[in-house]
Protein backbone atom coordinates (compact mmCIF):
# COMPACT_ATOMS: atom_id res chain seq x y z
CA UNK A 1 0.00 0.00 0.00
CA UNK A 2 1.73 3.15 -1.15
CA UNK A 3 1.12 6.64 0.21
CA UNK A 4 -0.22 7.68 -3.19
CA UNK A 5 -2.65 4.79 -3.24
CA UNK A 6 -3.74 5.58 0.24
CA UNK A 7 -4.49 9.22 -0.62
CA UNK A 8 -6.39 8.17 -3.74
CA UNK A 9 -8.45 5.74 -1.69
CA UNK A 10 -9.27 8.40 0.86
CA UNK A 11 -10.35 10.79 -1.87
CA UNK A 12 -12.43 8.03 -3.44
CA UNK A 13 -14.19 7.25 -0.18
CA UNK A 14 -14.84 10.95 0.42
CA UNK A 15 -16.34 11.21 -3.05
CA UNK A 16 -18.61 8.26 -2.34
CA UNK A 17 -19.75 9.80 0.93
CA UNK A 18 -20.59 12.98 -0.95
CA UNK A 19 -22.49 11.03 -3.59
CA UNK A 20 -24.41 9.33 -0.83
CA UNK A 21 -25.49 12.60 0.71
CA UNK A 22 -26.29 14.35 -2.52
CA UNK A 23 -28.48 11.56 -3.79
CA UNK A 24 -30.15 10.86 -0.49
CA UNK A 25 -28.92 7.27 -0.47
CA UNK A 26 -28.49 5.23 2.67
CA UNK A 27 -25.85 2.85 1.44
CA UNK A 28 -23.39 2.49 -1.41
CA UNK A 29 -21.01 -0.38 -2.09
CA UNK A 30 -18.23 -0.27 -4.68
CA UNK A 31 -15.52 -2.69 -5.66
CA UNK A 32 -12.50 -1.19 -7.36
CA UNK A 33 -10.01 -3.40 -9.21
CA UNK A 34 -6.49 -2.01 -9.33
CA UNK A 35 -4.83 -5.16 -10.58
CA UNK A 36 -4.55 -8.78 -9.75
CA UNK A 37 -4.99 -9.31 -6.02
CA UNK A 38 -5.16 -5.56 -5.54
CA UNK A 39 -8.65 -4.27 -5.06
CA UNK A 40 -10.58 -1.90 -2.86
CA UNK A 41 -13.97 -2.83 -1.56
CA UNK A 42 -15.83 0.06 0.03
CA UNK A 43 -19.22 0.28 1.61
CA UNK A 44 -20.38 3.67 2.87
CA UNK A 45 -23.64 4.07 4.71
CA UNK A 46 -25.39 6.69 6.74
CA UNK A 47 -28.32 6.94 9.08
CA UNK A 48 -31.34 8.48 7.36
CA UNK A 49 -32.24 11.90 8.60
CA UNK A 50 -35.30 11.56 10.78
CA UNK A 51 -37.85 14.37 10.90
CA UNK A 52 -37.36 14.58 14.67
CA UNK A 53 -34.44 16.70 15.90
CA UNK A 54 -32.46 13.60 16.84
CA UNK A 55 -29.55 14.70 14.70
CA UNK A 56 -28.75 17.49 17.13
CA UNK A 57 -28.72 15.35 20.25
CA UNK A 58 -25.05 14.51 19.94
CA UNK A 59 -22.42 16.33 17.97
CA UNK A 60 -21.81 13.83 15.23
CA UNK A 61 -18.24 13.37 14.13
CA UNK A 62 -19.00 13.65 10.42
CA UNK A 63 -22.02 13.94 8.13
CA UNK A 64 -21.38 10.53 6.68
CA UNK A 65 -19.58 7.53 8.01
CA UNK A 66 -17.04 6.12 5.63
CA UNK A 67 -16.28 2.57 6.53
CA UNK A 68 -14.24 0.33 4.31
CA UNK A 69 -15.75 -3.09 4.67
CA UNK A 70 -12.74 -5.03 3.60
CA UNK A 71 -9.01 -4.55 3.54
CA UNK A 72 -6.68 -3.36 2.05
CA UNK A 73 -7.58 0.29 2.61
CA UNK A 74 -6.79 1.27 6.19
CA UNK A 75 -8.53 4.55 5.53
CA UNK A 76 -11.16 4.64 8.25
CA UNK A 77 -9.26 6.44 10.98
CA UNK A 78 -7.35 8.90 8.83
CA UNK A 79 -10.06 9.53 6.23
CA UNK A 80 -12.22 11.59 8.51
CA UNK A 81 -10.99 15.18 8.60
CA UNK A 82 -13.29 15.88 11.55
CA UNK A 83 -10.86 13.89 13.70
CA UNK A 84 -8.00 16.17 12.72
CA UNK A 85 -6.88 18.26 15.70
CA UNK A 86 -6.90 21.42 13.57
CA UNK A 87 -10.38 20.83 12.15
CA UNK A 88 -12.94 23.62 12.48
CA UNK A 89 -16.35 21.98 12.51
CA UNK A 90 -19.73 23.44 11.69
CA UNK A 91 -21.68 24.67 14.72
CA UNK A 92 -24.95 24.38 12.78
CA UNK A 93 -26.84 23.05 9.78
CA UNK A 94 -26.79 25.45 6.85
CA UNK A 95 -25.31 26.64 3.58
CA UNK A 96 -21.64 27.58 3.28
CA UNK A 97 -20.45 30.76 1.62
CA UNK A 98 -16.73 31.22 1.09
CA UNK A 99 -17.03 34.93 0.17
CA UNK A 100 -18.71 37.84 1.99
CA UNK A 101 -20.86 38.27 -1.13
CA UNK A 102 -20.95 36.79 -4.64
CA UNK A 103 -18.00 37.99 -6.72
CA UNK A 104 -15.94 39.10 -3.73
CA UNK A 105 -12.64 37.41 -2.87
CA UNK A 106 -12.95 34.46 -0.46
CA UNK A 107 -12.40 34.98 3.27
CA UNK A 108 -9.56 32.45 3.25
CA UNK A 109 -7.56 30.36 0.80
CA UNK A 110 -5.29 27.39 1.39
CA UNK A 111 -2.00 28.65 2.77
CA UNK A 112 -3.50 31.84 4.21
CA UNK A 113 -2.56 32.96 7.70
CA UNK A 114 -5.47 33.64 10.03
CA UNK A 115 -5.74 35.26 13.42
CA UNK A 116 -8.01 33.98 16.14
CA UNK A 117 -11.49 35.38 15.52
CA UNK A 118 -11.00 36.08 11.82
CA UNK A 119 -14.02 35.08 9.75
CA UNK A 120 -13.13 31.99 7.72
CA UNK A 121 -16.51 31.52 6.07
CA UNK A 122 -20.23 32.17 6.45
CA UNK A 123 -22.89 29.60 7.20
CA UNK A 124 -26.39 30.73 6.37
CA UNK A 125 -29.28 29.31 8.34
CA UNK A 126 -32.71 30.89 8.47
CA UNK A 127 -31.51 34.00 6.58
CA UNK A 128 -28.88 34.52 9.24
CA UNK A 129 -25.34 35.01 8.02
CA UNK A 130 -23.26 33.32 10.69
CA UNK A 131 -19.63 34.41 10.49
CA UNK A 132 -17.57 31.41 11.51
CA UNK A 133 -14.42 32.57 13.32
CA UNK A 134 -11.01 30.92 13.32
CA UNK A 135 -10.75 29.29 16.77
CA UNK A 136 -7.00 29.93 16.82
CA UNK A 137 -4.27 31.60 14.82
CA UNK A 138 -2.52 29.52 12.19
CA UNK A 139 -2.30 28.55 8.54
CA UNK A 140 -5.24 27.27 6.54
CA UNK A 141 -4.07 23.80 5.53
CA UNK A 142 -7.20 22.47 3.87
CA UNK A 143 -10.63 23.72 2.89
CA UNK A 144 -13.08 20.85 3.06
CA UNK A 145 -16.26 22.52 1.83
CA UNK A 146 -17.33 24.21 -1.37
CA UNK A 147 -19.14 27.49 -1.79
CA UNK A 148 -22.88 26.84 -1.70
CA UNK A 149 -22.55 23.43 -0.06
CA UNK A 150 -25.06 22.27 2.54
CA UNK A 151 -23.34 21.29 5.79
CA UNK A 152 -24.56 19.34 8.77
CA UNK A 153 -23.82 19.96 12.41
CA UNK A 154 -20.25 18.87 13.19
CA UNK A 155 -19.13 18.70 9.57
CA UNK A 156 -15.44 19.58 9.14
CA UNK A 157 -15.06 22.92 7.34
CA UNK A 158 -11.38 23.78 7.25
CA UNK A 159 -8.17 22.62 8.86
CA UNK A 160 -6.04 25.28 10.54
CA UNK A 161 -2.61 24.40 11.88
Amino acid at each position, binding site marked *: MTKKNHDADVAFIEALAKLLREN*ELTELEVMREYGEADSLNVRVSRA*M*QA*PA*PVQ*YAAPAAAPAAAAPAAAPAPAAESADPADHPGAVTS*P*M*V*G*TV*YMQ*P*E*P*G*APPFVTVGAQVKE*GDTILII*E*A*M*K*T*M*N*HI*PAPKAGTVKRILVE*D*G*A*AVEYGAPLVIIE
Partner: protein
Amino acid sequence: MTWPAGYGRTVLAEVDSTLNEASRRFPTLTGPEWILARHQTAARGRRGRAWSNPQGNFAATLMLRDIAPMDGGLRSFTASLALYDAFVAATGRPAGFALKWPNDVLLNGGKVAGILLETIGKGGLSIGIGVNLAEAPAPAQVEQRALRPVSLMAETGARITPEEFLELLAAAFAKYEAQMRQFGFAPIRTAWLARAARLGEVITARLPNEEITGTFQTVDEQGQLVLTTANGPRMIAAGDVFF
Protein backbone atom coordinates in the same frame (compact mmCIF):
# COMPACT_ATOMS: atom_id res chain seq x y z
CA MET B 1 -46.90 52.47 22.92
CA THR B 2 -44.14 52.42 25.53
CA TRP B 3 -40.54 52.06 24.56
CA PRO B 4 -39.27 48.69 25.90
CA ALA B 5 -37.04 48.82 28.98
CA GLY B 6 -33.40 47.93 28.44
CA TYR B 7 -33.35 48.75 24.72
CA GLY B 8 -31.36 51.70 23.42
CA ARG B 9 -32.39 53.84 20.44
CA THR B 10 -30.29 55.81 17.99
CA VAL B 11 -31.85 57.77 15.15
CA LEU B 12 -29.56 58.90 12.33
CA ALA B 13 -30.36 61.27 9.48
CA GLU B 14 -28.16 59.33 7.08
CA VAL B 15 -25.84 56.33 7.13
CA ASP B 16 -24.37 53.91 4.59
CA SER B 17 -26.29 50.97 6.05
CA THR B 18 -27.70 50.44 9.52
CA LEU B 19 -26.16 46.94 9.47
CA ASN B 20 -22.71 48.47 8.93
CA GLU B 21 -23.38 51.04 11.64
CA ALA B 22 -24.32 48.26 14.07
CA SER B 23 -21.00 46.49 13.33
CA ARG B 24 -19.10 49.70 13.99
CA ARG B 25 -20.90 50.35 17.25
CA PHE B 26 -20.84 46.76 18.48
CA PRO B 27 -17.58 47.04 20.49
CA THR B 28 -18.87 50.00 22.50
CA LEU B 29 -22.50 49.05 23.03
CA THR B 30 -23.38 47.29 26.26
CA GLY B 31 -27.02 46.36 25.64
CA PRO B 32 -29.50 45.83 22.81
CA GLU B 33 -29.76 48.87 20.56
CA TRP B 34 -32.08 49.91 17.76
CA ILE B 35 -30.36 52.00 15.07
CA LEU B 36 -32.79 53.78 12.76
CA ALA B 37 -31.69 55.74 9.69
CA ARG B 38 -33.97 58.11 7.79
CA HIS B 39 -31.81 57.55 4.76
CA GLN B 40 -29.37 54.79 3.80
CA THR B 41 -26.84 55.44 1.04
CA ALA B 42 -25.76 51.81 0.63
CA ALA B 43 -28.64 49.67 1.81
CA ARG B 44 -28.01 45.99 1.23
CA GLY B 45 -29.92 42.76 1.14
CA ARG B 46 -29.01 39.11 1.26
CA ARG B 47 -25.75 37.98 -0.40
CA GLY B 48 -24.90 41.37 -1.85
CA ARG B 49 -28.32 42.11 -3.30
CA ALA B 50 -29.20 45.77 -3.30
CA TRP B 51 -32.09 46.90 -1.12
CA SER B 52 -34.05 49.82 -2.47
CA ASN B 53 -34.64 52.33 0.29
CA PRO B 54 -36.68 55.34 -0.81
CA GLN B 55 -37.39 58.25 1.54
CA GLY B 56 -40.17 57.56 4.02
CA ASN B 57 -39.48 53.85 4.21
CA PHE B 58 -38.25 52.17 7.36
CA ALA B 59 -34.61 51.10 7.75
CA ALA B 60 -33.30 49.96 11.09
CA THR B 61 -31.02 47.41 12.68
CA LEU B 62 -31.45 45.89 16.10
CA MET B 63 -28.19 44.79 17.65
CA LEU B 64 -28.39 42.05 20.26
CA ARG B 65 -25.64 40.60 22.45
CA ASP B 66 -25.01 37.22 24.08
CA ILE B 67 -26.73 35.13 21.41
CA ALA B 68 -25.60 31.49 21.26
CA PRO B 69 -24.34 30.41 17.80
CA MET B 70 -27.28 28.07 17.20
CA ASP B 71 -29.86 30.65 18.26
CA GLY B 72 -29.16 33.47 15.81
CA GLY B 73 -31.41 32.03 13.11
CA LEU B 74 -34.31 31.72 15.52
CA ARG B 75 -34.43 35.53 15.66
CA SER B 76 -35.74 35.39 12.09
CA PHE B 77 -38.95 34.16 13.64
CA THR B 78 -39.15 36.61 16.56
CA ALA B 79 -38.32 39.48 14.20
CA SER B 80 -40.89 38.54 11.56
CA LEU B 81 -43.55 37.97 14.22
CA ALA B 82 -42.75 41.38 15.72
CA LEU B 83 -42.99 42.94 12.27
CA TYR B 84 -46.35 41.25 11.72
CA ASP B 85 -47.65 42.63 15.03
CA ALA B 86 -46.31 46.10 14.24
CA PHE B 87 -48.21 46.04 10.92
CA VAL B 88 -51.39 44.94 12.62
CA ALA B 89 -50.97 47.74 15.18
CA ALA B 90 -50.26 50.26 12.42
CA THR B 91 -53.25 49.31 10.29
CA GLY B 92 -55.64 48.21 13.00
CA ARG B 93 -56.33 44.82 11.43
CA PRO B 94 -54.49 41.61 10.54
CA ALA B 95 -56.21 41.19 7.16
CA GLY B 96 -53.78 40.62 4.30
CA PHE B 97 -50.66 39.94 6.39
CA ALA B 98 -48.89 36.56 6.43
CA LEU B 99 -45.43 35.14 7.08
CA LYS B 100 -43.17 33.32 4.64
CA TRP B 101 -40.27 31.15 5.80
CA PRO B 102 -38.06 32.13 7.36
CA ASN B 103 -38.68 35.85 7.92
CA ASP B 104 -40.62 37.52 5.13
CA VAL B 105 -43.78 39.41 5.89
CA LEU B 106 -46.32 39.35 3.07
CA LEU B 107 -49.05 41.88 2.48
CA ASN B 108 -51.75 40.86 0.03
CA GLY B 109 -49.28 38.28 -1.28
CA GLY B 110 -46.55 40.86 -1.97
CA LYS B 111 -43.25 41.60 -0.24
CA VAL B 112 -43.61 44.57 2.11
CA ALA B 113 -40.49 44.05 4.23
CA GLY B 114 -37.13 42.35 4.32
CA ILE B 115 -35.07 41.05 7.24
CA LEU B 116 -31.40 40.13 7.14
CA LEU B 117 -29.46 38.83 10.12
CA GLU B 118 -25.70 38.79 10.62
CA THR B 119 -23.53 37.69 13.50
CA ILE B 120 -20.92 40.14 14.75
CA GLY B 121 -17.90 39.15 16.82
CA LYS B 122 -18.61 36.93 19.80
CA GLY B 123 -22.31 36.61 20.54
CA GLY B 124 -23.36 39.71 18.62
CA LEU B 125 -26.32 39.57 16.26
CA SER B 126 -27.60 42.31 13.97
CA ILE B 127 -31.15 42.14 12.71
CA GLY B 128 -31.52 44.48 9.75
CA ILE B 129 -35.11 45.34 8.88
CA GLY B 130 -36.35 47.25 5.88
CA VAL B 131 -40.03 48.07 5.40
CA ASN B 132 -41.76 49.61 2.41
CA LEU B 133 -43.87 51.98 4.46
CA ALA B 134 -44.39 54.65 1.81
CA GLU B 135 -43.05 53.30 -1.43
CA ALA B 136 -42.29 49.95 -3.07
CA PRO B 137 -39.45 49.48 -5.55
CA ALA B 138 -40.54 49.08 -9.16
CA PRO B 139 -41.15 45.42 -10.11
CA ALA B 140 -38.31 45.69 -12.65
CA GLN B 141 -35.88 46.35 -9.77
CA VAL B 142 -36.47 42.99 -8.14
CA GLU B 143 -35.24 39.58 -9.16
CA GLN B 144 -37.28 37.47 -11.54
CA ARG B 145 -39.58 35.04 -9.68
CA ALA B 146 -39.40 37.27 -6.60
CA LEU B 147 -42.61 38.40 -4.98
CA ARG B 148 -44.31 41.57 -6.14
CA PRO B 149 -42.96 44.46 -4.06
CA VAL B 150 -45.72 46.32 -2.24
CA SER B 151 -45.91 49.26 0.17
CA LEU B 152 -47.95 49.56 3.31
CA MET B 153 -49.40 52.88 2.18
CA ALA B 154 -50.49 51.73 -1.28
CA GLU B 155 -52.01 48.47 -0.04
CA THR B 156 -53.71 49.65 3.15
CA GLY B 157 -53.75 53.45 3.06
CA ALA B 158 -51.95 53.53 6.44
CA ARG B 159 -49.52 56.43 6.78
CA ILE B 160 -46.89 56.02 9.42
CA THR B 161 -43.44 57.50 9.85
CA PRO B 162 -40.34 55.34 10.39
CA GLU B 163 -40.00 56.72 13.95
CA GLU B 164 -43.61 55.81 14.79
CA PHE B 165 -43.21 52.38 13.22
CA LEU B 166 -40.06 51.76 15.29
CA GLU B 167 -42.07 52.32 18.50
CA LEU B 168 -44.52 49.58 17.46
CA LEU B 169 -41.82 47.22 16.24
CA ALA B 170 -39.50 47.64 19.25
CA ALA B 171 -42.33 46.93 21.68
CA ALA B 172 -43.46 43.84 19.75
CA PHE B 173 -39.92 42.54 19.39
CA ALA B 174 -39.16 42.97 23.10
CA LYS B 175 -42.25 40.92 23.92
CA TYR B 176 -41.24 38.00 21.66
CA GLU B 177 -37.59 38.19 22.70
CA ALA B 178 -38.58 37.96 26.38
CA GLN B 179 -40.82 35.00 25.53
CA MET B 180 -37.96 33.30 23.68
CA ARG B 181 -35.52 33.82 26.55
CA GLN B 182 -37.98 32.50 29.10
CA PHE B 183 -39.69 29.65 27.28
CA GLY B 184 -37.46 28.86 24.31
CA PHE B 185 -38.45 28.58 20.67
CA ALA B 186 -41.62 26.47 21.13
CA PRO B 187 -44.17 29.29 21.70
CA ILE B 188 -42.51 31.43 19.01
CA ARG B 189 -42.75 28.54 16.56
CA THR B 190 -46.44 28.00 17.36
CA ALA B 191 -47.24 31.70 16.94
CA TRP B 192 -45.25 31.86 13.70
CA LEU B 193 -46.96 28.79 12.18
CA ALA B 194 -50.35 30.27 13.02
CA ARG B 195 -49.53 33.21 10.72
CA ALA B 196 -47.69 31.23 8.02
CA ALA B 197 -48.72 31.50 4.37
CA ARG B 198 -49.18 28.29 2.32
CA LEU B 199 -48.94 25.84 5.18
CA GLY B 200 -50.00 22.44 3.80
CA GLU B 201 -49.58 23.59 0.22
CA VAL B 202 -46.94 22.73 -2.36
CA ILE B 203 -44.07 25.23 -2.42
CA THR B 204 -40.53 25.31 -3.83
CA ALA B 205 -37.30 26.05 -2.00
CA ARG B 206 -34.30 27.09 -4.07
CA LEU B 207 -30.93 26.11 -2.61
CA PRO B 208 -27.57 26.99 -4.15
CA ASN B 209 -27.29 23.60 -5.86
CA GLU B 210 -30.84 22.32 -6.14
CA GLU B 211 -34.55 23.08 -5.99
CA ILE B 212 -36.84 21.17 -3.70
CA THR B 213 -40.58 21.11 -4.27
CA GLY B 214 -42.87 19.62 -1.68
CA THR B 215 -45.73 20.14 0.70
CA PHE B 216 -45.00 22.73 3.37
CA GLN B 217 -45.43 20.48 6.40
CA THR B 218 -44.08 22.58 9.23
CA VAL B 219 -41.11 24.45 10.67
CA ASP B 220 -39.12 22.18 12.96
CA GLU B 221 -37.74 22.85 16.45
CA GLN B 222 -34.55 24.29 14.95
CA GLY B 223 -36.44 26.62 12.64
CA GLN B 224 -35.82 24.57 9.51
CA LEU B 225 -38.43 24.43 6.76
CA VAL B 226 -39.87 20.93 6.44
CA LEU B 227 -41.14 19.93 3.01
CA THR B 228 -42.73 16.56 2.33
CA THR B 229 -41.44 15.34 -1.01
CA ALA B 230 -41.88 12.15 -3.00
CA ASN B 231 -38.61 10.99 -1.42
CA GLY B 232 -39.67 11.74 2.12
CA PRO B 233 -39.32 14.79 4.35
CA ARG B 234 -36.60 17.33 3.62
CA MET B 235 -35.34 19.74 6.25
CA ILE B 236 -34.10 23.00 4.79
CA ALA B 237 -31.93 25.42 6.78
CA ALA B 238 -31.18 27.90 4.01
CA GLY B 239 -32.87 28.74 0.75
CA ASP B 240 -35.31 30.99 -1.04
CA VAL B 241 -38.96 29.98 -0.98
CA PHE B 242 -41.19 30.39 -4.01
CA PHE B 243 -44.93 29.87 -4.18
